[in-house]
């Protein structure tokens, strides 16, 4: 599209352009981060449509708050913090989150009977762990989701959740303890 900034422009240049009134520059930022933003919102909401709403509304809020962004800081955690806040607000408003669950992909077709048996066991273990994750409190589940499923570093998670680094570590530690207890007990 004529007039649209190329996708390889740095965040800082895009931010400056967006602050100068170039909405297309902000659209490039949206495209650049919409995937990780959507996954972040999905970890909180566990609903694709709601996660898309959270990202859209969060991006609009981010655009409005762009003048307050400290440009020496990385953009991604700041954006994801706004998205995560919006997702948590939506979760409280909709009150549907108890009905929803994260799911794991099914295993690929087996190559042999022996591998089929192994695969069944692995799939059962995976499902059991997924169920256990879904039984965690929202705080613990989100910490686990951001750390293990989105592979974000603890310091970035702290920034996204607006908590101290130690709080992230303690939530992960507590969540692992709950998961271990749950797996030890087996399915109930």
């Amino acid at each position: 599209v004529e007039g649209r900034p190329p996708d390889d422009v740095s965040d800082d240049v895009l931010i400056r352009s967006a602050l100068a009134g170039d909405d297309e520059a902000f659209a490039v930022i949206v495209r650049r981060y919409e995937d990780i933003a959507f996954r972040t919102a999905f970890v909180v909401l566990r609903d694709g449509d709601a996660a898309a709403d959270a990202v859209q509304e969060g991006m609009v809020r981010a655009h409005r708050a762009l003048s307050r962004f400290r440009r020496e800081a990385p953009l991604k955690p700041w954006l994801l913090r706004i998205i995560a806040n919006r997702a948590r607000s939506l979760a409280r408003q909709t009150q549907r989150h108890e009905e929803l669950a994260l799911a794991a992909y099914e295993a690929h077709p087996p190559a042999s009977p022996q591998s089929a048996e192994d695969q069944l066991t692995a799939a059962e273990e995976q499902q059991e762990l997924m169920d256990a994750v879904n039984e965690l409190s929202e705080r613990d589940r989100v910490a686990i989701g951001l750390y293990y499923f989105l592979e974000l570093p603890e310091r970035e998670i702290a920034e996204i959740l607006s908590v101290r680094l130690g709080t992230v570590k303690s939530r992960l530690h507590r969540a692992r303890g709950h998961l271990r207890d749950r797996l030890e007990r087996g399915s109930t």
Partner: protein
Amino acid sequence: MPRRDRLSDAELDRRLRALDVEFPKAPHLDQAVLANLRQPKPRFPWRVAIVLALLAALVASTSVIAGAFGIGPVRILFEGSMATPNGVARSIRSTLGQRVDIHTAQSMVGFPLEIPRSLGMPDETYVLPTGIVSFIYHARDGLPAIDNSDIGLLMMTIAGDTDPGLIGKIIHEGQTTLEAVSVGGLPGYWITGEPHVLWYRMPDGRESQVQSRLVTDSLLWQGVGVVYRMESAAGEQHTIELASELDRVP
């Protein structure tokens, strides 16, 4: 069912990392966001708000103007496109009244002062003649600086009557959003967007105002006989956590 062997940390870690979570495909939202950004903004409420804010500046603190939104004795008046003054973070202290130590402040007001337990005693305490007590906590780990200032959190305690009939609204107005939240079971609002003016009714029945000075988000909630307000850049969840752990000043 027999109990299984306890998983080692390493094994649990491995299994969590191997979990192939089924994320839906992220939709492309850039055009939807663009369309939203290009929507004309509502004009009428903002013009009204600007006029009211200008009137407020003229009629000083005993004005009887009341906004449509509020909590407890407080009404919230949005300033719309009226930007906060330059250097507001530095000059905020001059609007908070007399600087005193916290125990002097306690002796000057008729309600018990409370502070967030995990933050402890504030770095600075101020009292206004109207009985508003303000605590400033300097920026630190977990309390990011507000608006390039040295302030990490500003907490105000405002004495006044309560009016629970106004609680529980969720209002989206222009670029400012009020979100109804619960603070330890007490009703409140999380306010994001433009600076705003709070109108409140003092215990003697007169009305007064507090103007938002810092360009950041704020939390407003109702206590027993008082209304609390926190301005913070720490995010909604952390601010609500701090607000939920108030303890009497020792």
